[in-house]
């Protein structure tokens, strides 16, 4: 796989809307954005598709690539995969079947809940934990952003990743199998579409980690499907069909703590919000937790998948609605033989470390570059204003060392020169030419 494919991203910039402000560069957790020539550019090796730039851009210039309904035109039979977080987007809902029935009214022939597959993943997780005492701590692989973060920043934790496919992939396999049995069509004539709350699921479909290729044919955005569903739901609520296959555990996956609850253990950590995820990973890496932990659920978005940037409802309201819906469901629905048989559950490929932040090709080069960096940093103002287009002075210096930026773009040094006649550029030059 070449780098272009390896670092595929669904997040992109609408150049006309971008004003070159520094909001996104400051909110990006991996420092993957630089403002250059007045526009925000994404450094593809660093980006993990968390969607924080989409969440924070005041000009709506950061967007995500999604498929539209017409992406399914070529398929003879279309199946929608709704995630549990979708159930939290609607008001006054007591019955998940209304949502599922509505999906069959807006162009899908059938639906299969990701929540139902999530219950199978919960079963498989329990089994995996019971059969594999080592490593002691397993980290969930359900959030693609977290997996991508680990592969670029936490190599030591790669062995702790739970080697199971995310529920959406298991759901796609089952949905295809069921559709083939139901219709007699060939597997490739079935179109499987996931209705996604976040951009990282698009990335995970185009460039999945831990498996050769995705089982999903199209990824639609909740925000695009939502308006179509509202009117369909009015009709559907009169006589909803019985599609619901998930119980409390499956629906619970839509918000933080749900996946961990499905493992049926007490010794877990569940964290959400990308900066909290980073903190937990840092502490796991340093073995700082002086407690008994077996499972770690990490969600990049605040509140879990309900916090995905392509949702409509406030994440905390959506989470409350999921709690309400769960009240009327059994713990987990029994899994009928016909769809539980043999979906591939385990990841088939090892997820490898991508050392994208390296400062040199050898230790000696790295040391020299780090020495140079420290000297340059002492000349720069250290106020991390973002005026140069990099999020911090340190990021600017690292860019400079890697040949991807120029320390002379420091606007604060220019300001001081212009207003007070302080010329730091000479000193900068001296350190730079060492």
């Amino acid at each position: 796989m070449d780098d272009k494919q390896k670092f595929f991203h669904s997040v992109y910039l609408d150049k006309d809307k971008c004003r070159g402000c520094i909001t996104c560069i400051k909110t990006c957790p991996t420092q993957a954005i630089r403002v250059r020539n007045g526009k925000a550019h994404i450094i593809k090796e660093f980006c993990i598709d968390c969607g924080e730039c989409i969440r924070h851009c005041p000009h709506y210039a950061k967007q995500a690539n999604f498929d539209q309904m017409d992406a399914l035109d070529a398929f003879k039979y279309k199946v929608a995969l709704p995630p549990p977080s979708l159930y939290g987007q609607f008001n006054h809902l007591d019955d998940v079947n209304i949502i599922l029935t509505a999906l069959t009214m807006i162009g899908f022939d059938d639906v299969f809940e990701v929540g139902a597959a999530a219950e199978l993943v919960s079963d498989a997780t329990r089994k995996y934990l019971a059969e594999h005492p080592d490593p002691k701590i397993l980290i969930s692989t359900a959030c693609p952003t977290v997996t991508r973060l680990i592969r670029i920043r936490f190599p030591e934790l790669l062995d702790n990743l739970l080697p199971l496919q995310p529920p959406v992939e298991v759901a796609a396999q089952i949905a295809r199998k069921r559709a083939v049995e139901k219709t007699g069509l060939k597997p490739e004539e079935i179109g499987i579409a996931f209705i996604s709350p976040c951009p990282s699921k698009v990335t995970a479909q185009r460039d999945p980690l831990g498996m050769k290729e995705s089982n999903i044919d199209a990824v639609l955005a909740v925000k695009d499907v939502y308006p179509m569903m509202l009117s369909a739901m009015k009709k559907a609520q009169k006589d909803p069909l019985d599609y619901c296959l998930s119980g409390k555990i499956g629906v619970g996956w839509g918000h933080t703590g749900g996946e961990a609850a499905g493992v049926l253990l007490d010794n877990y950590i569940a964290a959400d919000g990308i900066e909290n995820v980073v903190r937990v990973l840092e502490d796991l890496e340093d073995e700082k937790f002086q407690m008994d932990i077996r499972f770690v659920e990490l969600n990049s978005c605040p509140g879990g998948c309900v916090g995905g940037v392509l949702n409509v409802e406030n994440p905390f309201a959506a989470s409350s609605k999921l709690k309400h819906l769960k009240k009327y469901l059994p713990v987990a629905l029994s899994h009928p033989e016909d769809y539980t048989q043999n979906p591939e559950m385990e990841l088939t490929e090892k997820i490898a470390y991508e050392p994208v932040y390296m400062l040199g090709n050898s230790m000696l080069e790295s040391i020299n570059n780090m020495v140079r960096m420290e000297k340059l940093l002492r000349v720069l103002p250290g106020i991390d204003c973002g005026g140069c287009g990099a999020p911090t002075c340190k990021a600017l210096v690292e860019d400079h060392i890697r040949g991807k930026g120029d320390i002379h773009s420091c606007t604060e040094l220019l300001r001081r020169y212009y207003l007070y006649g302080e010329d730091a550029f000479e000193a900068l030059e001296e350190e730079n030419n060492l």
Partner: protein
Amino acid sequence: MSTSDSLHFQYTVSKDDFTHAGSASSDVKNKLKKMNVSAAAVRKVSIAMYEGEINMIIHAYGGTIDVDIYEDRIVMCLKDTGPGIANIEEAMQEGFSTAPADVINLGFGAGMGLPNMRNNTDEFQIESEVGVGTTVTMTVYF
């Protein structure tokens, strides 16, 4: 470009500053991660240094950590200003602890600090004088 022999960093550690405990070891870890050092070596360094940092916060009156990174190794020198260790041999035993109860309540003070530092480094030296201070020098080869 000239060749530099080593890369030097100094950190100040303050007594009882639990909020910032681990900030020095975390900084060193994040630097090493950008420097062609194996993940296993980074881990050893960060565990050993974190333990040392915690010791300076719990037991000592604060101090400094000097870190030198060379092509083949890292040397960490942790120097505090007392109270010093009366019996080093005893202090090096796993489970031996003189940490006060409030510190143990925070999850520290299990008596594994010094043994963990020794076990995660290739060279480990400790010198101490009661009333003066303790100096620990640790080396990890890459």
